[in-house]
């Protein structure tokens, strides 16, 4: 397997036949001298996908393309871009696919809404359940026979 790209498989039960090559991210020559900028670069890199890898950020990948992107991010930051500007720039060049956390848009609305809606619907369902049940059920008083049986059991 010639490797311009590193396939990263996570071992959890995969047993797949893909090769996993050692992954090497940021190299010493890429690191910016300004630690604040470098930290911002790292944070941004973790949000951007290595386009030729599987589910791997450019921060983790040793692919050529990931390296190019890391350098690009650092260049933009050094030129004074804000984090958002850098992300916008990368997206304009590579598309939304590059974002590991997709933006809220028409096509991702279900993705983002699922947790919120489910939580709301679930909470409301539980509230309704808890509030309506007692009134229906509390009235079901014991019959005389059951009362006698309980007393008998309690005496034991």
């Amino acid at each position: 397997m010639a490797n311009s790209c590193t396939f990263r498989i996570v071992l959890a039960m995969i047993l797949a036949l893909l090769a996993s090559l050692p992954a090497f991210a940021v190299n010493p020559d890429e690191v910016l001298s300004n630690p604040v900028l470098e930290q911002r670069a790292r944070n941004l890199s973790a949000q951007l996908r290595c386009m030729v890898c599987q589910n791997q950020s450019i921060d983790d990948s040793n692919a050529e393309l990931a390296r190019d992107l890391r350098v690009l991010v650092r260049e933009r930051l050094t030129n004074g871009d804000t984090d958002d500007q850098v992300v916008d720039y990368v997206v304009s060049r590579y598309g939304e696919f590059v974002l590991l956390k997709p933006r809220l848009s028409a096509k991702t609305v279900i993705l983002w809404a699922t947790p919120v809606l489910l939580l709301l619907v679930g909470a409301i369902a539980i509230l309704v359940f808890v509030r309506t049940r007692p009134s229906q059920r509390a009235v079901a008083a014991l019959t005389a026979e059951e009362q006698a049986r309980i007393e008998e059991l309690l005496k034991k």
Partner: protein
Amino acid sequence: MIIEIGHYALVLALATALILSVLPVIGARRGDAAMMALAPTGSLVLFALVTLSFGALTWAYVVSDFSVANVWENSHSLMPLIYKYSGVWGNHEGSMLLWLLILVFFSALVAVFGGNLPDTLRANVLAVQAWISTAFLLFILLTSNPFLRLDPAPAEGQDLNPVLQDFGLAVHPPLLYLGYVGFSVCFSFAVAALIEGRIDAAWARWVRPWTLAAWTFLTAGIAMGSYWAYYELGWGGWWFWDPVENASFMPWLAGTALLHSALVMEKREALKIWTVLLAIMTFSLSLLGTFLVRSGVLTSVHSFATDPTRGIFILCILAIFIGGAFVLFAWRAPMLKAGGIFAPISREGALVLNNLILTVATATVLTGTLYPLILETLTGEKISVGAPFFNMTFGLLMLPLLVAVPFGPVLAWKRGDLLGALQRLWVFAGLSLFAGLAFFYIQNGGPVLAIFGLALGFWGMIGALADLWYRGNFAKVGFSVGVKRLIGLPRSVFGTAIAHFGLGVTVLGIFAATTFGTETVVEMKQGASVDVGGYSLTYDGLRDAVGPNYTESRGHFAVSRGGVEVADVWSSKRLYTARRMPTTEAGILTFGLSQLYVSLGDAMEGGGMVVRIWWKPFILCIWGGALVMMAGGFVSLSDRRLRVGAPSRKAKPVKARLEAAE
């Protein structure tokens, strides 16, 4: 010859499974004791046949019989013996056979320990297990047969994927499958209950030990996989939100919810219908996970086409079992009587909150995992959903749950009167803490989440201890009486406390390792030193070495603290000769709960080496916490009242009367 016996045993197993699928169900309908009695015997026969088949494949691996295609593809005569054993499931066909073996193993366990189940329930449960066995036997025989021969037989095998040549492979898949597949028993119990149209607290009692056992193994399997990825992949990550990881994590989340809802059902007879639904969903997620991993659909939409039969076959199994179970549920669930009532602030209330959050978390992981796939299939648009998405959504969901965990066990069943005042105070204490952190953040922009997370970890641990403290009533009765009281408590109480304590430990580890960890990337020449996490590492150059089936360059580092050498560590880059495949073997040094993680990068011009060194403080808490959770599971399993198949017979008549009372 032995291979053919193994193959034949599998075919016989299919015939047995088919008989088991039909006759006991008819027997249960007609009340025919002889037909129902077929179920336990048949399940044991099925287990014996699949074991024989698995044994035959193992034998082929151990003696390196390269006339078997599967062995030729995944083994090598020079491979160390332990990997010849574990290599049996280090490939698609073998791992499916392991899946099946564990499935019929659980059926056999139900047959053996299910002596005190009602005959009809046992017959139905084992029949449903047999349906699943039949499906997977057909899958193996028709699309993934490990017993195919090669003629002429090659002289040497192609070796096992080097990443899999690790102790992790020997332990991780069996543990994971014991968990994954263990949930099949809960599924079968749920379907059997739906078929019979009858369900009560005794049912929950029978199901809970199986859930607990499966959950315990799954916890161990996931933790083991995470640690394996951590040390093997070479860059110190331990959880990647990779689809394959999510596939095993979803049944764990749903299983955790099931464990808690079954508790409510057993103790209070509430949440019956929900518990049945959860039991179905948990195993459905196990099946879905199997499909996602085995069909290759996750790697890319296109790799699905590389082996369409397998993917489509599992998809059919998935559709039949999940679809069938849900149809059955929709049809029969309304017949099940709903049970007990409770106030919102009560043990049940807390467990319902647990279920709500865990279910939403499961759904979030599920959507995140499948969304890119579905979107691309429907619209052709590609998006990525990765770690940042999951960290944010899943993390936000877990925060309230982790805050709530210690409250649950100290609340009373039905109505949490006594502790009401205290709870209200705690809520305000929590709000104050939150306000304080918010204030700190506005002023400092500092690591608020980290402080909060660390506090959450301690909260989980201290909360678990507080539970025991209150139960022993130490404050009132003094130490010695308190201890006596504790000893008198059922073991499941300790199981809960231990598991919740473990959860706290894991949370603490996660936040401590991410907050205080450091990463150092440097180019080092021989003799150079670098300071990391209070230790000084001196690079001592590369040495070449030869292993049984690989060659490697090993970098040596001397580790000192305060000028005194305390340890040394080797970190290497290997090349596996058969597949010409390079791997890294990180050097890991453990100091207490913390680790130094040294990984070699590329060689630079001029003799330097890129070296990555991570200081991972308290990282072992992450997996240690999982081990503690597992210990909690086992302690709870050893509870007399919960022992597999040991629900007291006395419970039933009382039960019947209670039902009459409704």
